[in-house]
């Protein structure tokens, strides 16, 4: 315990010191890490690692001492705070002061302290969690005790050896030196870092690979050189220098990152490389983003207007005071008191002083509590969005996350949605559908039928779930998984892909009988040949293609095999018949490696040989620990193997291959074990993996084929790239035919909306391989520019491929996507899909999700050849787009009616987009795109995606929302006004960059249409109300200036004046701002048209501010003059007269809120009752507390007396009613004569349920019903005022050949200037 507190005390001071120290060894490009135990005795100074940050983390912003200055400093960055402090300080100037200076400080101190307390609480939470984390335990090797001892995380230093056990969390970034795993692997789960739940393999540093016995830290004497700490999770470069002088490269595969969890590995030992704040996890940890919403921008303009009004009022009063003084001349009246010094002020001077005084008196006009209130309301709104059950996904047990706290109302004002396709519109759960091998198509009809069945089951299941209440699906359906759940209970999250039963079964594929026969046939032949030791090359090429195809599917990936019932251990197999393969393997290896000369290359290859001693396999694949024996018996069959893949299509392919008995049973860093029919388990020696990247769009593995003993490259990738890399077809007619037919099938697949992948292989001669290997190894060990070198090296390898076949994978649409898109579109949102997929797939998905309508004309823009954006193409574009100029120029009022939408769909591909985004063409592109109902950009790069969003956002001045799930959407998400991430299958990068994270696309509908609408209308109304309230209150005092010689006197007691906004009238508006619902959620979803309300900012238009101001001035006139005349020429004193006015103002303000409140829950009633009660309680207490204080008002017993007077009640009765009469009357008339769509929606809410349903179903058919008189998608005749486009035929297709650079021509089949550019791409 003592240790704890001591640590806490030290905590505050340590980090700055650490930071200072860190700077000393600067300008080194690399970091050198020595083992700490060598320097254990030499305390501190000589330890070469002493400059590096220790593992203690501190995410708090403040310390006890620095809190006040630092927090105040931060708060004063907000201009409003400075303004209020300025005014409060002005009060300390005697000539100017209006209030008691101490009292005047109260509101600003209150506001500042509320914010400060909020910050303090947040910081305290961080401090507590820091402390908790800092005091977690881990095993660190101690030289003194010669064993691993438990230490706190914060005591871990760079250079320490730590031992990690299964399911432990890594305390720092650790270089893996040893693992209990026989393959020297360590599995980690990175869910806390990037949200990906699939296990990732990490391997022991190569030089420590061959340690047979347990790693002994005492023997370690190497030095590690690596790069400086950075936040790139996917990069780690460095090398380890051994005593012998040998260097070994280090990769990210060797590094275990802080925050990850060790899985499936009993024990691992590593050396700490980065600790504490220098770990990658911490460097990646940056707080929520701060965006300013559109509404807030608009509000700031009006705050500015308030300032102007304030200054005008002050100026008016100052001039008035000067004139008032002037009229008395030298005869100073007895009530015009001299200044305290007894001097006589000139009218001009006193006018100047008065100006300042008035600023203080009228300060309330700038709503001091507005900013705080808005923040509070937004936090509540976020809370409610967070709590919405409809936005909760059972399957993944996740709900909507609001990562940006202050742009909730922007959700209600969106105009453009930019969506990714894969994973956003679709499930990104890939299902293998069809394939073509060697030019023969296998349609997998049975599989398709089965899938259709599941789909039905799924929907039924969902239905029964929705009726069946709240029982979680996982519990009810997958009872057989319960054992697994129990076993995995130590894992932080249950696995994401353990959703429904139907899904699990979808992974099973019913094989196509024809293909299955061929596979069987082929493998039995191979078995036969192997038995007779015939060379495999004699196999007929179509058969060998088939088997190669499946081998490629099985091994050309990064799938990790795990067994669900043994969560703590990766799958192990007991096979004995495999040994001889490996032995042959090894003997052949020798010959190859002798070709190589470089020592490091040798080590790569040769270590294979020594690593596996004879009989090593049995030892390595140790039997399952006995404790699990009971369970293993029922599911040791291979059907229970589970594949964990980084991308879902990899898993789909592996599952597909398994259906053909070609199953992946194990993956080690250097070999892949595949089980083939007849042939049994084969071990492919994995020489290299060239991972997938988005530029190459392919991945390759280099293996040694165990049967043919050839070095084979298997490549899998997007058809567009693979097709270009196929060996020139002059080699054989057959290959040419295969390529041709495969291409044909690929087009068919794409037309079905399937994702296509091409599979190819290449056989390398040993010489070729050696030659390539040498360069590759050089590239691998380079520290500078390694990525580029590796990229080059990969390009060299992946050429002249032999096409094996292609696969079609279905990416099912997410549930409810077409409906969501339809209703979002009805809500007036323009939806653009930006995808990296190929055009045909994208178009078909677009049709499937109703983004494109078959009745629409399709405008396809394809540039055939890549060329620089300048030059003739630009010119042709100019001419092509010229007709669209008419659209843009013919609608100069583009801001009011931005959507002159025709029945057009625009499809543009990446290459063309490159031109279209050129400066000179972007306007034209936009003009075209705007006149289309939907836009589809295919094959676009992440950069292009973000450029498109930026273009639309900046040029059209619209609110944009980008939604996506993958890393390629990050840039677009960041550019858009609101970025939404789908927390789907592809990791969390998009979520991390987003403002809101949704589990599914369809939730977007409720998020925008309901929550967005509510948030917007609540906040807009609240802001307007705030302006009104303050203006109304301040105007009371302004009118009074006419009756007090413009002397800055206030009839309202200074306490009321100062606390009116903060206390008496604060709560009801917060409640209304948080809970008010103008229309019910059901109606909002059923009538998406109501969303237009927010898009056009109809709740808060600039004129509304002025209307509110005028209303405020009118109401204050009423509240002032009714008491004025009622008390005229009576013996009433200043504050006895002012108190009723305050009361009346409070009643009026509350009643005003009442007329604006649409739903009255008990909380609204309570808050209003509370406000009134609070006012009277405070007033009564205050007026009874001190008979000689509170100068000058001295309100002793005022309220008490007032309450005895009937006149007071009579005033309270008439004034609010007279004040609100016009507004109330206007609202009533408007509700009847020209109701807004929202009001009609509200009326609809009131109707009985069955009638309402009737109306809604009718109105759904007729979009242009009177309910939505000004909606964007009206009948076309209306939409195109000059009749540019008459819909008179089905397909008006204008073919334009842009193939040649110069020639561009219009072949108008129809005389209208309307056009569609359809370029025949090479696919047609």
């Amino acid at each position, binding site marked *: 315990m003592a240790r704890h507190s001591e640590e806490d005390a030290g905590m505050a001071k340590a980090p700055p010191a650490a930071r200072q120290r860190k700077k000393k060894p600067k300008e080194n490009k690399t970091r050198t890490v020595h083992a700490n135990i060598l320097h254990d005795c030499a305390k501190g100074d000589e330890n070469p690692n002493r400059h590096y940050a220790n593992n203690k983390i501190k995410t708090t912003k403040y310390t006890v001492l620095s809190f006040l200055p630092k927090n105040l400093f931060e708060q004063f960055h907000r201009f409003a705070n400075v303004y209020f402090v300025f005014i409060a300080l002005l009060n300390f100037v005697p000539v100017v002061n209006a209030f008691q200076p101490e009292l005047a400080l109260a509101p600003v101190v209150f506001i500042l302290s509320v914010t400060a307390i909020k910050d303090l609480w947040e910081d305290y939470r961080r401090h507590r969690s820091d402390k908790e984390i800092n005091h977690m335990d881990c095993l660190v090797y101690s030289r003194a005790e010669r064993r691993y001892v438990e230490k706190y995380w914060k005591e871990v230093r760079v250079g320490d050896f730590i031992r990690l056990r299964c399911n432990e969390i890594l305390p720092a970034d650790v270089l893996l030196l040893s693992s209990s795993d026989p393959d020297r692997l360590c599995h980690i789960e990175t869910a806390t870092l990037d949200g990906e739940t699939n296990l990732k393999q990490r391997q022991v540093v190569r030089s420590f690979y061959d340690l047979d016995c347990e790693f002994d830290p005492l023997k370690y004497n190497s030095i590690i050189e690596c790069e400086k700490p950075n936040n790139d999770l996917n990069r780690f470069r460095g090398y380890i220098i051994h005593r012998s002088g040998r260097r070994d490269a280090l990769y990210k595969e060797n590094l275990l990152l802080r925050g990850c969890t060790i899985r499936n590995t009993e024990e691992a030992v590593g050396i700490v490389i980065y600790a504490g704040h220098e770990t990658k996890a911490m460097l990646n940890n940056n707080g929520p983003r701060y965006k300013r919403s559109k509404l807030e921008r608009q509000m700031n303009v009006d705050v500015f207007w308030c300032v102007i009004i304030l200054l005008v009022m002050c100026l008016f009063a100052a001039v008035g005071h000067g004139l008032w003084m002037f009229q008395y001349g030298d005869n100073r009246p007895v009530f*015009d008191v001299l200044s305290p010094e007894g001097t006589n002020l000139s009218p001009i001077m006193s006018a100047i002083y008065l100006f300042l005084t008035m600023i203080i008196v009228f300060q309330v006009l700038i709503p001091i509590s507005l900013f705080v209130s808005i923040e509070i309301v937004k936090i509540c709104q976020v809370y409610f969005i967070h709590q919405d059950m409809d936005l909760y996904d059972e399957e993944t047990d996740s709900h909507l996350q609001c990562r940006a706290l202050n742009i909730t109302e922007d959700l209600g004002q969106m105009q453009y949605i930019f969506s990714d396709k894969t994973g956003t519109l679709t499930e990104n759960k890939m299902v293998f559908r069809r394939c073509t091998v060697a030019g023969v198509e296998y349609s997998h009809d049975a599989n398709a039928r089965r899938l259709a069945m599941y789909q039905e089951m799924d929907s039924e299941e969902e239905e029964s779930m929705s009726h069946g209440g709240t029982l979680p699906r996982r519990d009810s359906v997958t009872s057989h998984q319960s054992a697994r759940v129990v076993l995995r209970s130590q894992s932080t999250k249950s696995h994401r892909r353990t959703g429904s039963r139907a899904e699990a079964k979808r992974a099973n594929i019913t094989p196509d009988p024809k293909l299955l026969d061929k596979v069987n046939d082929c493998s039995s032949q191979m078995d036969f040949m192997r038995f007779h030791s015939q060379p495999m090359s004699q196999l007929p090429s179509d058969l060998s293609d088939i088997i190669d195809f499946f081998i490629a599917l099985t091994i050309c990936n990064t799938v990790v095999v795990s067994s669900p019932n043994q969560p703590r251990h990766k799958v192990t197999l007991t096979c004995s018949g495999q040994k001889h393969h490996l032995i042959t393997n090894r003997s052949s290896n020798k010959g190859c490696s002798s070709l190589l000369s470089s020592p490091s290359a040798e080590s790569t290859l040769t270590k294979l040989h020594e690593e596996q001693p004879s009989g090593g396999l049995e030892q390595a694949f140790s039997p399952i620990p006995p404790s699990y024996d009971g369970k293993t018996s029922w599911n040791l069959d291979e059907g229970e193997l589970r594949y964990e893949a980084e991308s879902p299509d990899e898993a789909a392919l592996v599952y597909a291959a398994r259906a053909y008995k070609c199953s992946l049973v194990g993956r080690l860093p250097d070999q892949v074990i595949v089980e083939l029919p007849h042939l049994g388990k084969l071990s492919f020696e994995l020489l290299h993996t060239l991972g997938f990247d988005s530029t190459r769009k392919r991945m390759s593995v280099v293996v040694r084929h165990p049967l043919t003993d050839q070095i084979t490259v298997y490549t899998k990738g997007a058809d567009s790239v693979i097709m270009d890399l196929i060996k020139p077809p002059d080699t054989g007619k057959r290959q040419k035919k295969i390529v041709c037919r495969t291409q044909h099938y690929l087009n068919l697949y794409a037309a079905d909306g399937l994702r296509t992948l091409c599979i190819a292989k290449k056989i390398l001669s040993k010489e070729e391989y050696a030659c390539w290997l040498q360069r590759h190894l050089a590239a691998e060990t380079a520290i500078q520019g390694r990525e580029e070198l590796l990229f080059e090296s990969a390009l060299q390898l992946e050429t002249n491929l032999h096409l094996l076949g292609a696969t079609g994978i279905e990416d099912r649409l997410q549930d409810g996507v077409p409906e969501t898109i339809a209703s979002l579109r009805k809500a007036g949102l323009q939806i653009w899909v930006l995808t990296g997929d190929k055009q045909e797939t994208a178009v078909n998905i677009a049709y499937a999700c109703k983004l494109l309508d078959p009745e629409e004309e399709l405008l396809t823009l394809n540039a055939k050849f890549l060329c620089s954006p300048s030059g003739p193409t630009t010119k042709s574009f100019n001419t092509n787009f010229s007709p669209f100029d008419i659209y843009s120029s013919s609608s100069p009022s583009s801001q009011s009616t931005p959507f002159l939408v025709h029945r057009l769909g625009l499809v543009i591909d990446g290459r063309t987009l490159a031109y279209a985004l050129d400066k000179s063409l972007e306007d034209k592109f936009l003009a075209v795109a705007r006149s289309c109902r939907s836009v589809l950009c295919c094959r676009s790069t992440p950069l292009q995606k973000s450029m498109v969003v930026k273009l639309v956002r900046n040029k059209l001045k619209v609110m944009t929302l980008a939604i996506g799930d993958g890393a390629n959407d990050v840039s677009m998400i960041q550019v858009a006004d609101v970025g939404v991430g789908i927390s789907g299958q592809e990791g969390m990068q998009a979520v991390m960059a987003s403002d809101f994270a949704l589990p599914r696309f369809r939730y977007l509908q409720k998020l925008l249409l309901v929550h967005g609408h509510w948030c917007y209308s609540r906040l807009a109304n609240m802001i307007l109300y705030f302006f009104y309230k303050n203006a109304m209150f301040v105007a009371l005092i302004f009118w009074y200036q006419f009756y007090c010689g413009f002397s800055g006197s206030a009839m309202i007691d200074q306490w009321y004046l100062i606390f009116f906004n903060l206390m008496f009238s604060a709560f009801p508006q917060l409640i209304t701002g948080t809970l008010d619902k103008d229309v019910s959620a059901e109606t909002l979803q059923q009538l998406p048209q109501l969303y237009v309300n927010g898009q056009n900012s109809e709740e808060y238009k600039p004129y509304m501010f002025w209307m509110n101001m005028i209303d405020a001035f009118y109401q204050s006139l009423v509240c002032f003059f009714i008491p004025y005349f009622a008390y005229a020429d009576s013996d009433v004193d200043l504050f006895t007269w002012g108190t009723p006015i305050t009361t009346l103002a409070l009643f009026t303000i509350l009643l005003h809120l009442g007329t604006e409140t649409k739903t009255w829950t008990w909380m609204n009633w309570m808050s209003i009752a509370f406000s009134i009660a609070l006012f009277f309680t405070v007033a009564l207490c205050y007026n009874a507390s001190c008979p000689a204080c509170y100068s000058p008002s001295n309100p002793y017993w005022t309220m008490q007396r007032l309450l005895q007077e009937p006149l007071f009640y009579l005033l309270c009765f008439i004034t609010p009613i007279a004040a609100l009469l016009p507004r109330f*009357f206007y609202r009533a008339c408007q509700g009847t004569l020209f109701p807004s769509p929202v009001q009609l929606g509200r009326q609809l809410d009131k109707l009985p349920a069955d009638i309402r349903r009737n109306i809604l179903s009718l109105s759904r058919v007729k979009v242009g019903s009177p309910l939505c008189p000004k909606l964007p998608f009206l009948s076309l005749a209306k939409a195109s005022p000059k009749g540019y486009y008459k819909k008179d035929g089905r397909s008006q297709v204008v073919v334009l050949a842009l193939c040649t650079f110069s020639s561009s021509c219009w072949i108008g089949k129809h005389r209208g200037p309307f056009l569609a550019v359809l370029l025949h791409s090479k696919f047609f």
Partner: protein
Amino acid sequence: MMASSYSAKDEDGHITVSGPGGGTLRNKKPENTAFKQQRLPAWQPILTAGTVLPAFFIIGLIFIPIGIGLYVTSNNIKEFEIDYTGDDTSSPCYNCAKNFSWNNTKSCTCTIPFQLDQPYESNVFMYYGLSNFYQNHRRYVKSRDDSQLNGNIDSLKVGASSPMASRKKKKPSKECEPYASIDNKPIAPCGAIANSMFNDTLKLFYNDPNGTSVPIPLTSTGIAWWTDKHVKFRNPVGTNSNLTAVFQGTVKPVNWHRPVYELDTDPENNGFINEDFIVWMRTAALPTFRKLYRIIQKKNNMAPTLPRGNYTLVVDYNYPVRSFEGRKRMILSTISWMGGKNPFLGIAYITVGSVCFFLGVVLLVIHHKYGNRNNSANISN
């Protein structure tokens, strides 16, 4: 446990609010409560002509009778007012007013005859009224020391003279400046309000039909708020109960003719608790105001308090108002439950009630003409 806490941290990072769902192991499903799902039972009024129509009529029907009642009540109040400023040459006070200033020490008396047409039955309140007198001026309102008026002896002490007092606050509040002290002697009572206290003396005489002039007894107590007289304003309690001794060492305000302890002979109405003084210290809200001066108590039930007939008002003219074009008045008024004579509120109620009623009719027309169209249109589409 560790795992959960770590992920909780990572997940919400520095986000303030993430609800209770900060990465718990348990099911994160939100609770299905009416509050969290925003389904609290609510009353949802819709403002249309049809729905608000009754409200308008009801308000109209309530307000008009109230207004009539108030108007009648106000009209039953009898009020009589004499302006005795003396601006006019014909006015009896013209001579007094002509060259009168604060510095005059000799008072000037003027006599104003007047006639009451109606007998005043109940208690009559006698007011003096001032116009154009900005008692609500910001600096004027502040210029007082409540602590001194509350009998705090320290506020009457002289500045730095005694070493004992130097530790405490001992002077009149600085708010009183420049009327806080003269020659280092504190002014009692200090401040501009006290300094400018109304000091005319008004006397009423009833001119009997038989020619004699009968003075009317004027009660000078009970004119201030009870709380003012008994709580807020206290005479300083010194070692002896003699007011003169207590106020020893203070000076009277410059414009006063007598020191504060000589305001009245009645010890219960002298010093700071003099009711005329208290009434004056309650600063008026508006530049035209009246202040209660005396009460004419009804003596017996038989005779009216002030019978019909001729009266004489005798004024000791001390208070100069001409420099700021002020007016001085004397007002006699009876009082009702709602205060003095003021027909405004009655008229206001009648007006607002009528307007409501009229708007109600307008809404009725609107409702009849357009209200149904909307609903049917709504349902038909």
